[in-house]
């Protein structure tokens, strides 16, 4: 053995908190997503419903404009919980498409490039890695859901003093309603990507999953004379969770408890798949 005359001295200076390391993964994933034209396109598309909402709010508070346009706007589109639920629904569909467009890519590229050993041979756990990827998707989908919707609430509140006090639950409903959808989209999309490991297939499968599964459940409903399909149908699940938050009447027959249960099951399954599939080294058989 050679004689080693030098003494190795590692760095002992200040370091950022270990709990913040997932942010590095998230930051790079966001940068990767924003480099895509379709991400920018969807972010721009997401502005249209908001712009429409902003125009309606503006017209409500500009009597001159309503008179000129001769619109019965106040009667047709009242600025209430239903209005904001409509905005949130539209924004969540765009968030769904945005997740489908970027979600698979941020994970599949690492899996296909065998990049996981590089990440996980550093002070970063698999959970932190997955969390970082999911956080990137959540950050971008937040930009098209609760962040701009709360901006509309702020606009309405600024134009009509006392409105916010009278409708105080709308802002929390938007925030909580968005966060019912955002983790579901992010984790399911990542789980599908982890299983398929092909971007195009994962994107298609993610979209199909939310339509094919309720369809299969509907077939079971017909044959077994049960009512399962609703528990798998995304718009019904969200409606059941959102309507009580917005203090509105629910109409689809799926209880909020059952909807929350479906949501939890989907989140648990997606997390389990991710923990099983996102590994630093593959078993070669």
């Amino acid at each position, binding site marked *: 053995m050679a004689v080693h005359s030098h003494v190795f001295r590692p760095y002992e200076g200040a370091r950022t908190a270990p709990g913040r390391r997932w942010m590095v993964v998230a930051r790079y994933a966001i940068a990767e997503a924003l480099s895509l034209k379709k991400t920018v396109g969807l972010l721009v598309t997401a502005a249209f419903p908001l712009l429409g909402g902003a125009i309606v709010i503006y017209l409500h508070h500009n009597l001159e404009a309503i008179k000129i346009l001769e619109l019965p706007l106040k009667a047709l589109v009242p600025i209430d919980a239903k209005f904001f639920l409509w905005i949130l629904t539209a924004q969540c569909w765009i968030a769904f498409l945005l997740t489908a467009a970027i979600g698979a890519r941020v994970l599949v590229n690492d899996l296909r490039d065998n990049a996981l050993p590089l990440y996980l041979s550093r*002070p970063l756990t698999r959970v932190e890695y997955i969390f970082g990827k999911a956080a990137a998707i959540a950050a971008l989908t937040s930009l098209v859901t609760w962040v701009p919707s709360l901006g509309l609430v702020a606009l309405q509140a600024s134009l009509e003093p006392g409105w916010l006090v009278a409708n105080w639950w709308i802002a929390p409903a938007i925030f909580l309603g968005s966060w019912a959808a955002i983790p579901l989209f992010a984790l399911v999309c990542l789980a599908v990507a982890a299983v398929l490991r092909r971007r195009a297939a994962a994107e298609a499968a993610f979209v199909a999953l939310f339509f094919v599964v309720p369809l299969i459940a509907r077939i079971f409903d017909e044959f077994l004379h049960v009512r399962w399909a609703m528990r798998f149908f995304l718009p019904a699940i969200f409606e059941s969770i959102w309507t009580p938050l917005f203090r509105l009447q629910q109409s689809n027959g799926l209880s909020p408890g059952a909807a929350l249960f479906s949501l939890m099951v989907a989140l648990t399954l997606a997390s389990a798949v991710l923990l099983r599939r996102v590994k630093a080294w593959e078993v070669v058989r």
Partner: protein
Amino acid sequence: MSAVVRTEGVASGAGIVFTDVSKFYGEVLGVNGVTLSIEPGITALVGPNGAGKSTLMNLMTGLVSPTRGQIAVLGHAPRDPAVFRRLGYCAQFDAFPRGATGFQFVAGFLRLFGYEKEEVSLRARAAIERVGLTEAAKRRVAGYSKGMRQRIKLAQAMAHDPAVLVLDEPLNGLDPMARSEFISLFRELASEGRHVIVSSHILHEVDLIADQLVMLHQGYVAAEGEIPEMREEMVVDRPMQIAVRCSEPSRLASRLFTADHVIEIKLLPDGDGLIATTRDADRFYLLLNELASRGEVGVEAVAPADEDAHAVYRYLVGSEAQ
């Protein structure tokens, strides 16, 4: 420490210690019953594809957990955060974030160690400079040649100044000049007191690199230690070959055949020497000295003909490697 068979009862210390480690991927054997200790310096893990080199590296980097046994890296378990700070890993495959420049690649992974922005920048630049890629640091890795990719991978592995460098097939795809530069760099890193662990399936190149060898075959450690020591221990089963350059090879051959430990002699085709096979190298050298000092033959050069990794591996596992 050296042994042709697995060493037993390796004491734990500041090095990298495997104690009866096995790893099975389902029914597939990764490594089995590995007990060894890796000291500072350059250690080469050698063996053909599927011998268990990458599994051993994955185990010491904490990327996979052993099915059985214990591993200690600098006195800690492999997934201990204290180990990650002191361990640098260079994967066998290319793995780069899409669109990243060389600098971004090194800096991005450095951030995972928790360095502040200025420290990240400083370290990334220093590591890139050390592998000679400063000029190309702002270019995208996707446009790099194979050699440049190997360099930038090495830069990201050593940018955080690790005490242990685990490099999976680092010389793959390099031209002879780049190989030579890499080997010099490994020696430099080892001389700083680091553990530099490289894997290779090309046996003749590890002779140039390693202080210590770990020879793997089908998941088992066939031998470990330094090549001359390994060869010496094998001399009973595998007589040693010694090449002699001399003026009168036929005359020397006839004299050597009088010794009972010499079992075979081949004259070299160029007529300027011979290769003798002996069961006792020490007695062979004494005999050769005696003949030369008496002036019976003019000996120009003497060297072991099979004291290299390739020969040792071939003897041990009975198969040809590259």
